[in-house]
């Protein structure tokens, strides 16, 4: 059983310089209240692992604008000109990863695999500096697992065990990130009494969640 904590209290647990996976796709399914609390506490030097950096004024874009981020590992920064400008100025270091490779690298980190063997990226700049392994005559890139200090995820609904449900396109990276960090913080819209969410509806088991954040008012 978990006691829901305030977003400001959660943000205070994340030190400057931490690596944080953040769920969401263009801001859909991101932990917006927690992001606001991180901006409010003027967190600095984050490594952000996420699909994208959304757009200025939305989701992860707020962290970028507020100067909280030193490094980004993402598949796409195209809708956030500030990320691009800060990359060019050298303020933010950006590693671009194919979206499917990113999700598999995070999953590998979460489920204890040694790496990911994928054809995606072969013969492109993604291959640079990576080992290529030949298996039965086919070539695959060896991609490293990714883990983070924190996973900051959003869910439609939780219970006080920490079980999570997601909805529609707000699933995206959230379920897989819940597997791959030392500390998992989940921001639900609603929190239900224990026993109300049917076992078959649970997509992230509560045992993965370390901190349950207060629900939306």
């Amino acid at each position, binding site marked *: 059983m978990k006691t829901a904590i305030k977003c400001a209290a959660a943000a205070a647990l994340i030190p400057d310089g931490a690596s944080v996976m953040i769920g969401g*796709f*263009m*801001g*859909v*399914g991101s932990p917006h209240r927690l992001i606001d609390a991180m901006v409010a506490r003027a967190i600095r030097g984050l490594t952000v692992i996420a*699909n*994208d950096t959304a757009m200025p004024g939305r989701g992860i874009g707020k962290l970028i604008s507020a100067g909280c981020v030193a490094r980004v590992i*993402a*598949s*796409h*920064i*195209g*809708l956030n000109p500030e990320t*691009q400008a800060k*990359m060019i100025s050298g303020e933010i270091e*950006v590693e*671009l990863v*194919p*979206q*499917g*490779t990113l*999700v*598999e690298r995070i*999953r590998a980190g979460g489920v204890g695999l040694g790496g990911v063997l*994928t*054809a*995606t*990226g*072969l*013969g*492109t*700049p*993604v291959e640079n500096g990576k080992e290529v392994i030949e298996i039965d005559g086919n070539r695959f890139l060896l991609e490293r697992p990714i883990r983070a200090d924190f996973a900051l995820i959003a869910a*439609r609904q939780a219970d006080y065990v920490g079980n999570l449900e*997601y*909805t*529609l*396109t*707000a*699933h*995206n*990276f*959230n*379920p*897989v990130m819940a597997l791959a960090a030392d500390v998992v913080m989940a921001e639900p819209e609603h929190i239900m009494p224990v026993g109300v969410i049917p076992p078959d509806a649970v*997509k992230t088991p509560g045992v993965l969640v370390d901190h349950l954040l207060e629900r939306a008012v």
Partner: protein
Amino acid sequence: MAAMDPKELIARRVAQEVQPGSLVNLGIGLPSMVATFIAPDLGVFFQAENGVIGLGARPPEGMEDEYLTDAGGGFVTAVPGAASIDSAMSFGLIRGGHLDMTVLGGLQVDGHGRLANWMVPGHMVPGMGGAMDLVSGARRVVVAMQHSARGASKIVPECTLPLTSLRRVDLVVTELAVIRPEPDGLHLVERAPGIGAEDIVAATDAALIVPRDVPEMAI
């Protein structure tokens, strides 16, 4: 016949490639226009890589849902029988060969049929998003793009921009031509209404294999 808008022409022609009952991913921009020209009774399911199978049209004003968007962040609807999936399942489908077809825009396609569509070094570094996975994993890759950009052919002998994948795409549709890359080169298979094969050859930097008769698109 009055000249059709080039993008509409491309989208209409690509729509003819979509098989009944198939699973299709449409890229942002021009490719997304293809959905407009698919008959609803074909049983085609559109997938967006951010996690919905059974993407429908934009909802009426006031009925948008912040949790139901396409890969470009635009509001969409879900058709009956739609499924929500997370990114691991979404790219599992894409990379595992379960996606029947993807339609993507292009910056360049070269004589080997290889696509470059994700960056212009020094100018535009948006990231590859799902493009590399889509091109590497989809059963069929169709590139929908204008034939030229700023007067320069986008169909070139060798891509000068970073590749999206080593995989040879299956079809390239422009407002001038339908081109099928094969191991022996780029085959010109159709010409746009009113366009001659010689016009296409002249507008194309890469070598084209041109048969005696090049049929006109049936648009």
